[in-house]
């Protein structure tokens, strides 16, 4: 099947408006007869559920957690971008569009990104109307901060808990519709397959995670909003339950999977401390507004620090290497995430890592304490303040901005970041790749949509900070509700979709058989045993830098591991009860397939772009080097084993932005 992105004709500024003017609409009376399933209740799924219900559709929403409010969007810290230009610093829709395309290393779809930038401002209006308590300045207006890869301040925030507040906003909008009976909420339910009838997505098979019951749910359209697949690495900043299953199931039923190798390794996470580690914790990128990243200049000092003979605060300025400021003077500590992560890896690989494992760099706030402290002393009319007083005043400002992050750090690491610099190291955080969608956010299965992190379209090969929240809410509140109507307009005479059909029978049978297999296998190794092994292969060979040999080995190793898993996995308990191991087994089985496709995609992409760094393709200074021939989206078609997947290419055309070397120097 040829890929058609269905991007409307016309100038980029008018595409979305013109599109909306000409699509088919469903009248309110007919919407009452149309059902939509939404899988996932994060920013994308939650906002889509609420809006579709408000428009009048009957929505069924699914979450594996015990409440929609717990989806992992809740953990996003730093903020949400919007081209409001409240700061008057030169921001505009075009500039947000430009920054996002450049930040994605020219591997995203122009028209989608422009639309995202266009609706961004509206998100903030919407959220304020919903009672989201964004940070404000003393005049009562909204405050902004700056994020990586941009030269303006366009990030709105609610302390270090922006994701939480936005999700609770979407959750409140859902609650209003749940109360009206327009959303039927299925908590503690996991989607285990999509059902295709006459070539269209017409429902799902879900498992009730409390009773183990397998359920059939029919609808006129299915929306996948199940987030990213970062947990393929076992260790990531994703929630423990985050998984690829919903996306992978639709892939296996005909949806192409795009750019699986584009993964974001976030530069500022708390370093791992031991083999027992179950997950990694992010420290918001917003900290790079006020923190400076460094390692010691001399290896002797590194050694002394590791042995505990020297404290980082003992080192003078000229004994420190602020390597981001040195290498990238224009953007300094606010270079995009992929660049910052690779720079940290480069220093640590060279032996400058500052903790016992050699995998940590410092994030230091001392300079900010002093800068803010002096400013406060002036504001408060304190003449000749002592150094201690300045530090104290400055720390108060930093506490107000990032207090919860500092507290989180202290609880995990057991060190006070107000007194000693934080230690950080990159960790898997976000996946730009995902289910392929066209301009309508529809997958290659008619009637099956993918929104938010679950799709692929807006961030190219690298996502800029504070853009995930923007995309999730843009898709859910403002894009999908229009585009899905254009499709559903053909369904007004279809009537209720029945679950009593051979297609549902077959899908349910497949799901049940797989569950029975796991329960009866009685193998020798736990699910986690395999998940950890997969994670290690992924991190070592498909991590921050990749090469052809490593990727080929990874493909072999994952394929062998998958075979072993299906022979020897041990799942205790029964199918008809609350059984977390069973749920996890299904997720890991899917990760074991995705992982191989991931490595294959990375092997095929013989260039470096954004988060995908191929060692064979770098400049003399070690920067990522794109290759013109790879200016396309890799969309993989499922054909059985991952090795048989077929590559389809969507050529990327840039008419409104000149494709340049991406430089932050």
């Amino acid at each position: 099947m040829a890929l058609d992105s269905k991007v409307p004709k016309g100038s980029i500024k008018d595409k979305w408006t013109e599109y909306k003017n000409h699509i088919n609409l469903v009248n309110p009376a007919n919407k009452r007869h149309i059902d939509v399933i939404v899988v996932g209740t994060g920013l994308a799924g939650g906002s889509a559920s609420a809006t579709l219900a408000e428009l009048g559709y009957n929505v069924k929403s699914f979450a594996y957690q015990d409440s929609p409010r717990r989806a992992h969007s809740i953990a996003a810290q730093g903020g949400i971008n919007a081209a409001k230009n409240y700061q008057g610093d030169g921001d505009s829709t075009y500039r947000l569009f430009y920054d996002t395309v450049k930040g994605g290393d020219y591997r995203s779809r122009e028209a989608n990104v422009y639309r995202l930038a266009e609706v961004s401002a509206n998100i903030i209006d919407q959220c304020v109307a919903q009672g989201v308590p964004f940070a404000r300045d003393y005049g009562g207006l909204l405050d902004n901060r700056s994020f990586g890869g941009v030269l303006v301040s366009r990030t709105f925030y609610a302390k270090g808990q922006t994701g939480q507040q936005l999700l609770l906003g979407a959750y409140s909008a859902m609650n209003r519709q749940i109360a009206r009976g327009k959303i039927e909420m299925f908590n503690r339910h996991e989607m285990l397959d999509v059902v295709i009838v006459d070539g269209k997505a017409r429902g799902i098979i879900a498992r009730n995670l409390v009773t183990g019951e397998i359920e059939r749910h029919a609808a006129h359209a299915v929306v996948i909003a199940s987030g990213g697949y970062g947990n393929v690495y076992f260790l990531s900043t994703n929630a423990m339950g985050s998984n690829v299953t919903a996306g992978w199931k639709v892939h296996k039923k005909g949806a192409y999977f795009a750019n699986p190798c584009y993964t974001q390794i976030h530069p500022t996470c708390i370093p791992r401390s031991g083999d027992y580690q179950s997950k990694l914790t992010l420290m918001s990128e917003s900290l790079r507004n006020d923190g400076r990243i460094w390692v010691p200049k001399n290896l002797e000092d590194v050694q002394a620090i590791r042995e505990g003979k020297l404290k980082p605060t003992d080192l003078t300025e000229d004994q420190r290497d602020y390597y981001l400021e040195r290498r990238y003077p224009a953007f300094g500590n606010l270079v995009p995430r992929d660049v910052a992560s690779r720079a940290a890896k480069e220093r640590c690989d060279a032996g400058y890592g500052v903790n016992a494992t050699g995998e940590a760099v410092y994030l230091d706030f001392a300079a900010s304490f002093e800068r803010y402290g002096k400013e406060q002393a002036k504001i408060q009319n304190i003449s000749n303040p002592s150094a201690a007083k300045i530090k104290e005043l400055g720390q108060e400002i930093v506490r107000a901005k990032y207090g919860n992050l500092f507290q989180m750090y202290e609880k995990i690491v057991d060190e006070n970041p107000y007194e000693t610099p934080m230690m950080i190291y990159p960790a898997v955080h976000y996946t730009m790749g995902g289910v392929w969608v066209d301009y309508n956010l529809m997958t290659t299965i008619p009637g099956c949509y993918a929104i938010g992190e679950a799709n692929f379209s807006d961030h190219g090969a690298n996502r800029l900070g504070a853009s995930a929240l923007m995309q999730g809410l843009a898709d859910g509140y403002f894009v999908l509700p229009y585009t899905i109507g254009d499709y559903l307009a053909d369904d007004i005479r279809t009537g209720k979709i029945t679950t009593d059909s051979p297609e549902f029978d077959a899908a349910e049978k497949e799901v049940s058989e797989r569950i029975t297999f796991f329960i009866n296998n009685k193998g020798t190794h736990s699910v986690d045993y395999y998940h950890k092994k997969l994670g290690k292969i992924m991190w070592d060979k498909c991590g921050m830098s990749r090469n052809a040999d490593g990727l080929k080995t990874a493909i072999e190793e994952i394929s062998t591991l998958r075979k072993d898993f299906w022979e020897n996995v041990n799942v205790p308990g029964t199918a008809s009860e609350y059984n977390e191991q069973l749920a996890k087994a299904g997720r890991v089985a899917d990760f074991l397939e995705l992982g191989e496709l991931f490595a294959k995609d990375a092997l095929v992409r013989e260039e470096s772009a954004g988060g995908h760094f191929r060692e064979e393709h770098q400049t003399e200074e070690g920067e990522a080097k794109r290759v013109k021939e790879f200016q396309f989206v890799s969309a993989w078609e499922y054909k059985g084993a991952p090795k048989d997947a077929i590559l389809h290419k969507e050529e990327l055309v840039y008419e409104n932005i000149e494709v340049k070397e991406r430089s932050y120097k």
Partner: protein
Amino acid sequence: MNLTLKIWRQKDASTKGQMVDYKVTEISEHMSFLEMMDVLNEQLVNAGEQPVAFDHDCREGICGMCSMYINGEAHGPDRGVTTCQLHMRMFKDGDTITIEPFRAASFPVIKDLVVDRSAFDRIQHAGGYISVNTSGNTQDANATPISKHAADEAMDAATCIGCGACVATCKNSSAMLFVGAKVSQYALLPQGQVEAADRVQNMVAQMDLEGFGNCTNTGACEVECPKGISLDNIARMNRELMKASV
């Protein structure tokens, strides 16, 4: 360190539960409490036994899913943390640790340490929202200035993660800190004023319907709340409720 764990095991909602003893060895002080539980569960799975069911997801103290009652305290002995953020450095070699589910009649046990907190969702359905359409056709975000003080105070209330530690801690199983926090967030913002009276009345009515107890001003909820939600929110809720009825 080596530890003895006394854990509540309960097959399902309708089966009687009991405390069961387990031993774990070589636990590092840098582990989180849930990583220690992972070690126990891996041990149980490998021995062919049923692992201990417990709720958890983000493991960074924000989703509100984890819910253990450890040594008689919701989220354990540390302050300002959820169970997933509790670290083993709070314990010492040879300790016996008691682990129970959150206990409240309105939070029935699903299995082992997993409880059903859907009552919280139902209270939110009753009024935990501002009735504004999600069409984006609202006024500009900066059209109504909000004092920084009010915005910050609303944020402090909104920071509640809905974990239910307040209920589990309260001798009356009261949900007033949880409900008060939501009522306060909206009461402090101009956007929330329009429906303020209905909201507080409906949410409180649902709270009572769910069987949560009343507040007798002990303040244990504030002490155990991982997000430090202030008792002031309960006072504000009561004020709002009174205001609504006059």
